[in-house]
């Protein structure tokens, strides 16, 4: 037994060592490219924001990336072309090019005659869009197959992958939906909660795998989290009952002077309707982006040290790989926690929206 542990520990050390040696290559690359100093901030932001192509690796000035389709609608005309036409932002194609600076840096713009830039309606299949498509396809294939397994193995014990999914489904049902919404109504919201949870969880996990076609920072993109939060908001508002609105405009259990003549409570409650999903959006975005930034930051350390001294870079790479491994484990945990928190809060908001009057009457 002891021998087994020892050999396992040895194996792990060996793998870490090999990985560290592999990163030595980065150090050399960065040491060679002395003309262009390494900008860690730029590198990190480039990795976590959306892009028109899917960058895989760069060797010197050779960039390996998968070009993605650009779809634009400008002045009554549709444009479809490959993002490779921009030649990584160096070229102009059909009057469009990638903005070099400003708030819209890196986005497709059209230069007007007077030199000002116009942003066309941009429906391009960007890196994150493709990542969303990939994870959506994965989800559909996965869950439909699992549903088939349930049909085939009716009433029998779960097996293999089905057991993992079952764990999550039961977790959402018994720990999230039923306590937050209640035994009577939770089934109406199970499809939404399960979809949201698995979408976030899957994308969080895929975002941690740094190999194409995964590794896009999907759940760390504010547009994605915004859409998810919007769905929760939409569902809350659409499904809400009379009691919910009464709670907003005539909050029970609050002194009358908070509602009249100045409707303080209604204003706060109405604001709350919007701040709740807003917070959902920001929390998920910030957590996932922060995790990616930290991991990329540790990787950047190798280059930063390597630029000043090659041997410092070597030393740092060992430490960095260790830290990155640690961060990745932490991110695995965060991936689950954030998916759980988003789902739980959605469930609580939905639960508040459909709460029965009888249930509330008991509290007052």
């Amino acid at each position, binding site marked *: 037994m002891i021998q087994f542990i020892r050999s396992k520990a040895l194996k792990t050390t060996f793998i870490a060592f090999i990985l560290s040696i592999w990163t030595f290559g980065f150090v050399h690359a960065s040491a060679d490219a002395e003309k262009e100093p390494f900008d860690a901030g730029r590198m990190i*932001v480039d990795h*976590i*924001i*959306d892009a028109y192509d899917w960058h895989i690796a760069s060797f010197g000035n050779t960039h390996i990336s998968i070009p993605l389709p650009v*779809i634009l609608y400008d002045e009554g005309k549709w444009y479809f072309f490959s993002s490779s036409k921009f030649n990584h932002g160096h070229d102009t194609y059909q009057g469009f090019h990638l903005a070099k600076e400003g*708030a819209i*840096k*890196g*986005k497709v713009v059209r230069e007007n005659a007077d030199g000002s830039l116009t942003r066309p*309606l*941009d*429906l*391009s*299949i*960007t890196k*994150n*869009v493709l990542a*969303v*498509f990939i994870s*959506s396809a994965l*989800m*559909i294939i996965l*869950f*439909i197959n*699992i*549903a*088939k397994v*349930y*049909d085939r*193995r*009716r*009433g*029998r014990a779960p097996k293999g992958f089905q057991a993992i*999914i*079952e764990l999550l*489904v*039961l977790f959402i*049902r018994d720990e999230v939906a039923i306590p937050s919404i209640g035994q009577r109504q939770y*089934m109406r919201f*199970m*499809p*939404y909660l*399960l*979809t949201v949870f698995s*979408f976030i969880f899957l994308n969080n996990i895929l975002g941690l795998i740094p190999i194409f076609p995964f590794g896009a920072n999907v759940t760390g*993109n*504010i*547009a*994605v989290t*915004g*859409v*998810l939060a*919007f*769905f929760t908001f939409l569902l809350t508002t659409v499904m809400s009952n009379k009691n919910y609105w009464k709670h907003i405009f005539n909050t029970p259990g609050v002194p009358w002077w908070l509602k009249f003549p100045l409707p303080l409570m209604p204003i706060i409650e109405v604001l709350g309707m919007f701040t709740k999903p807003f917070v959902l959006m920001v929390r998920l*975005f910030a957590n996932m*982006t922060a995790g990616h930034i930290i991991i990329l930051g540790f990787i950047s350390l190798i280059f930063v040290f390597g630029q000043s001294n090659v041997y410092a870079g070597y030393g740092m790479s060992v430490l960095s790989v260790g830290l990155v491994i640690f961060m990745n484990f932490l991110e695995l945990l965060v991936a689950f926690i954030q998916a759980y928190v988003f789902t739980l809060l959605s469930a609580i908001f939905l639960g508040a929206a459909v709460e029965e009057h009888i249930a509330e009457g008991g509290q007052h």
Partner: protein
Amino acid sequence: MELVSPGFGLIFWMLLAFTAVFFILKKFAWPGILQGLKEREQQIDDALKAAEAAHQEMKNLKIDNEQLLKQAKEERDVILAEAKKIRDKLLDEARIKANEEAERIVQSAKTRIESERMAAITEIKNQIATISIEVAELILKEKLQEPEAHDQYIQRILEHKPL
């Protein structure tokens, strides 16, 4: 700034993709999974309940069996007691009968012995009488050899027997 400015294209595609995923899964995946889970839970619940019921039934059966056994034992005891009574009665009857029979035999034996005895006595009496008469005859013959004695004797008889 790039980080917190959502891209319109991404919002559009995300809305589309998520809506599609949601409705597809809602139609084809979740009902199957949730239904399967519910059915299995129901099944397990039913199975547990059935096991509990079977257990209870077995308990009842055991109690029933014990009761039956007890009843059977009681019945056996009753039957045994009755059999004993009957045996005793039969024995008693037999004894009484035997006694009666013995008595009867003894009685008849006694009667016969009595009658035999009587017959013997009678015989003896008769024989004594005959012998007596013969003796008397002989004596008389001897005594009446002389004429006076003969006369005397007639005289005496005449005296004793008034005519």
